[in-house]
């Protein structure tokens, strides 16, 4: 299979350039520089729907009659809020391309107002939103909030509930076809705080060609007395990863998770493995942190074992850099967010906005499977919320309702260049999505299945503080600190946080959290018997 990205002539005609002349191999270096710059400038000037014209068209159609919810909100916005400018805070980098290149320009075309985007790395969205709230600046209108932050945001008045507005515009039906895991995530203390927008379940992506290699299979069977297969437990994962690294390093490493501080955070790894092993975060009676108990140590040791089988230097890489290694074919197994599937198929790299991601060398070689121990983390994800200090609250609400409406959201999760992932039943079943690449159907089915077994991020008061302490503490353990003392340090910090915030408050908050599906490995959607079966 050729490694070349198929570059379509229409891509260039759209911007008035002659592709053959541009990539003439005999061109001098100076001219090449000049033409690259020209192309980039032209792409920027050509406007935001470069390579997403189809999605924009479909979204426009949905908003002008195709989808009742989308149509209702766009009409309301055009009538009452024409020309209103909105400011939205979004995760920096690829995530922010969605409002910058798609929903923002489309909103401007239909409703007339600008959507300006403030970018921040994942944990900084929390801190920036709080800073703006303390500063009473009123700068932000839309906040892409992780469900884990909603208790703090709601209690401290950073965001506003939207039940009244949902009732006013009669768009309650928009919640109907969310996957059951996601239905509860925008709710808190009986109120709705926004619209769920991103199904961030982790899945296991593996190299079919490596696992199907006969020589490797033979060697593996000889060593472990079982066939080389997608690992079913974390122990098997570590053994398999170590085996692949032994055999194939430095060309290929068994595993490769990015672990840079705050990008977006190591706590997800721990929460996943810890709960897969049956761990509970707190003792409900004393509210003492239990992350350093034997289960915690086992989980952390498992993570450290995986680190040994990964490319050296991976500690400092954020998750997009680890994707780069994956795309270059250097990693055999990766567990990460859904875009992994899309970018592996070169679906995204045609767009100039993705100029900093290399082309995929693993097109057609990627398989999808449930996480070892079956419980993958539903890590991060976003709920579209409205800032309580916003001066354009209702317009912001309509914008949020619009981009999460069934048809428009389908277009959003199909964009080639951003990181929003399917979260509605209609997404999983979409014929259009399934046609995007040969394995897309299996991909969507695997995402729905992952959501059935997923465990969710702790959603409670102070979650950002706890996550931060865990993230930092883990980087210390990666750097060589002993696992037990590292976890003890984290537990101590957690206890200090609990004490400062008030034990009773945290106890109540934790109890609320445990009621949500996916809070532990025992009450996942599948365990509750509500698994969604997609075929």
């Amino acid at each position, binding site marked *: 299979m050729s490694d070349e990205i198929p570059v379509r002539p229409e891509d260039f005609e759209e911007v008035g350039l002659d592709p053959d002349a541009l990539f003439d191999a005999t061109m001098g270096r100076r001219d090449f520089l000049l033409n690259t710059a020209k192309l980039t400038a032209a792409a920027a000037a050509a406007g935001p729907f470069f390579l997403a014209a189809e999605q924009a068209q479909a979204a426009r159609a949905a908003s002008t009659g195709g989808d009742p919810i989308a149509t209702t909100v766009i009409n309301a916005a055009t009538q009452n809020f024409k020309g209103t400018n909105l400011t939205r805070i979004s995760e920096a980098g690829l995530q922010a391309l969605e409002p910058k290149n798609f929903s923002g320009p489309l909103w401007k075309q239909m409703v007339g107002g600008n959507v300006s985007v403030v970018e921040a790395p994942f944990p900084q969205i929390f*801190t920036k939103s*709080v800073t703006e709230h*303390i500063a009473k600046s009123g700068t932000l209108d839309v906040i892409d909030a992780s469900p884990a932050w909603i208790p*703090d945001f709601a209690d*401290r008045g950073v965001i506003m509930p939207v039940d009244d507005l949902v009732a006013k515009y009669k768009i309650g039906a928009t919640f109907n076809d969310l996957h059951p895991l996601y239905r509860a995530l925008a709710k808190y203390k009986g109120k709705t705080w926004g619209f769920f927008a991103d199904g961030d379940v982790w899945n296991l992506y593996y190299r079919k060609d490596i696992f199907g290699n006969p020589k490797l299979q033979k060697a593996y069977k000889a060593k472990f007395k079982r066939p080389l297969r997608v690992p079913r437990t974390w122990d098997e994962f570590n053994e398999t990863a170590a085996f692949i690294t032994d055999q194939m390093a430095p060309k290929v490493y068994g595993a490769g998770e990015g672990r840079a501080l705050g990008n977006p955070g190591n706590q997800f790894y721990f929460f996943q493995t810890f709960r897969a092993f049956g761990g509970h975060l707190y003792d409900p009676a004393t509210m003492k942190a239990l992350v350093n108990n034997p289960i915690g140590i086992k989980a952390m040791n498992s993570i450290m074992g995986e680190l040994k089988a990964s490319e*050296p230097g991976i500690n400092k890489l954020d998750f997009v850099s680890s994707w780069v290694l994956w795309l270059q074919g250097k990693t055999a197994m990766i567990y990460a967010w859904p875009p992994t599937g899309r970018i592996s198929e070169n679906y995204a790299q045609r767009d100039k906005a993705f100029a900093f991601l290399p082309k995929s060398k693993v097109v057609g070689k990627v398989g999808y499977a449930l996480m070892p121990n079956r419980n993958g983390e539903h890590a991060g994800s976003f709920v579209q919320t409205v800032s309580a200090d916003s001066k354009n609250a209702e317009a912001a609400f309509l914008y949020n309702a619009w981009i999460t409406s069934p048809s428009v959201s389908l277009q959003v999760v199909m964009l080639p260049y951003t990181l929003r992932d399917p979260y509605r039943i209609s997404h999983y079943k979409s014929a259009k999505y399934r046609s995007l690449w040969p394995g897309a159907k299996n991909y969507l089915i695997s995402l729905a299945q992952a959501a059935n077994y997923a465990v969710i991020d702790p959603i409670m008061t*102070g979650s950002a503080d706890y996550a931060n302490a865990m993230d930092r503490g883990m980087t210390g353990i990666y750097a*060589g600190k002993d696992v037990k003392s590292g976890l003890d*340090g984290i537990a101590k910090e957690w206890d200090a946080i609990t004490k400062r915030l008030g034990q009773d408050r945290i106890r109540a908050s934790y109890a609320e959290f445990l009621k949500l599906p996916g809070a532990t490995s025992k009450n996942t959607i599948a365990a509750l018997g509500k698994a969604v079966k997609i075929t």
Partner: protein
Amino acid sequence: MAAHADTYGRRRLRAASSLLDAHIRWVLVAPAVLLILFMTIYPLGYSMWVNFVNYDFAIPGHRWVALDNFKTVWDDPIARHALWVTLGLSAAAVAVELVLGFLLALAMLRAFVGRRMLMVLFVVPLFVSPVIVGTFFSLILTRPFGPTNYLLGKVLGHTVNIDFTNDHPWYYVSIVLADAWQWTPFMFVILLAGLASISDQLYEAAEIDGASPRQSFFFVTLPLLTPIVLLAVAFRLVDSLKFFDVIYVLTRGGPGTSTYTLSYYLYEQGFQLFHLGMGTAGSWMFMVVISVIAFWLVRRLLKPVDAVSA
């Protein structure tokens, strides 16, 4: 009629301008004084209040907590750790810069072709933003994309795999290295000026008296250089205690909290965790520490002024 009004106007103008003249000394300093007052007194006054109340995002209200904020910072092991890290890094950085700067000043003392140009080049790092310096070294040192490990491997003959921002003690080395890259020229320039200002006659007199080159170094050069060295070291010390930019870009205080300096710790308390009461209390304590050194330094700087105004 018009002429009369005209002279009246001109007389008023002259009166006003002579009023201005009489008080010109005060008028001239007023803007500076007022601006500095406004931007320091008001915030410091407000923060005095914040020191003693609860000011925290997660906990509503501003109830009086007396010395609790100070106590929390004082008891926080991370704050202690940050203090040691700050002192250690400052001492190490200043020491390295002093030695390197001195050697360089000695080497550059005699003129040679191209010296002027090199002087200009050497001074450039001083004008680069510390954030940029951090970025420089982050790019050079990061594994696996930076060239440092590769070059070290070539020089030493075996593969080198140091993680400069994650391995102990290399993260300290990286920070000191970045700081030295930027501030050695500071020491260099000052020491060069100092060395060059030592009169030749002193050396000649020493030579006549039979002193060897080594002896004239110890008995002529060093003593005359000492006040300048002290000044330079004090300057650098006070400045380096504020280590923030390089830490932010290079290590983010990590791994864990190993490279937390006082500034970074206070930044995290105030603007990441939103414990503004704690952050303010910590900042006051930090300011007191710096003030002690700064006080000495400012008095020393003003001595020439005293001599003139005497």
